[in-house]
């Protein structure tokens, strides 16, 4: 098992500064959805992690905690994520993954 970054939509969507996206060393890994979060009544969209590309460095956690001062990112064990969070289910065309994320399928 290994750690990957997980962005808490409720906390991110309150600020949504996109800083983590600009500092993650890996390309195409922290993505941004204009819709995610809005469907829960938040003003902005949210960042989210394409976890199969994440190398677990936790740089985004440092950026969100210290630069954005928002503490919206946590490292979690990959098996604690809903299966639907894997990139396979995320295409750049349909970024609103909130619906699929609501049904964890790990087991």
């Amino acid at each position, binding site marked *: 098992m290994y750690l990957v970054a997980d962005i808490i939509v409720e906390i991110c969507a309150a600020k949504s500064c996109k800083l983590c996206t*600009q*500092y993650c*060393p890996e*390309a195409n890994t922290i*993505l941004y959805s204009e819709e995610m979060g809005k469907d829960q009544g938040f003003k902005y969209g949210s960042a989210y992690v394409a976890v199969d590309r994440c190398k677990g460095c*936790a740089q985004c956690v*440092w950026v969100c905690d210290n*630069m954005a001062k928002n503490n919206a990112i946590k490292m979690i064990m990959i098996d604690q994520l809903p299966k639907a969070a894997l990139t*396979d289910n995320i*295409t750049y065309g349909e970024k609103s993954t909130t619906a699929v994320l609501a049904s964890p399928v790990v087991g």
Partner: protein
Amino acid sequence: MSLDYVKFSNGFEKFMPKEYRDMVEHGPFGKKVTVSQMGNFKEVLEEHPMCAGCAMTLFIRLAMIAFPNPEDTITVGTAGCGRLAISQAAIPFVYGNYGDQNGVASGLSRGLRLRFGDKPKDVVVMAGDGGTADIGFQQVLHSWFRKERFTTIMLDNEVYGNTGGQESGMTNRGAVLKMAPLGKKFEKMDMLQMAKVAGCAYVATVVPNNPRRVESVIKKAVLIAREVGSTYIQAYTSCNIEYAIPTDKVMEDAKTVENDRYQFTEYVSDEAKQYLTERYGYKEFLPKPAAPAAAIPGKA
């Protein structure tokens, strides 16, 4: 080397992998993308085996976003960590023997000019500090003296990272590394000064903890190299393995080093200033309107 190579061949669309479809449909080719749009488009860089948290990886990622015309760009690299990522992008990559990157790029950039005339085809060299300042030193300096029109970027992690931690000319005096256990006895080489003496039209230092600055520096360097002459960027891209920086402290280290010995510096020749202003509408080199006639030259 044209937008045609990022299209689907008729009938093949449904068989293409997702990454390729994303590239065609949401990639940066033929559009102008910026660092502030990151996370909203498919980047040309794909997955690669560089270490987790490596600042060099982040720098390469930002540089590729900053290329003014990625569809008309060729990168040239050499042995060292960076090529592990640079080669995994939807941008043609040329890889030669260790240290010959600026020789290869000289021929390539001349050949492209013969073949394509005035249509800009950008050549960008990205190599480590060992590849640039030690093994490739002679070819680097000569390409600058010849005013070859391409961009040289040094990925300066101040060590030979790919081979386990030998000192390079760019390592700081006193640094103790796995394969320099007594500490380095000589000063870090002043490649910036050498670039100026050799006649580079643009010379800048940058650290990846300021993505917008990386973007602006790369854009200027690539544009100036189209017509004016050689351009050189020296980027601090720490090796978290050889310098034992915890991965979640890599940006903190970048900030400390930036304040300490890697402050942003930028030299732009007068000809390059004029070129950027007239050709690409840059405003920053225009004389300040209200200021008493003291003009810009001393600025850089």
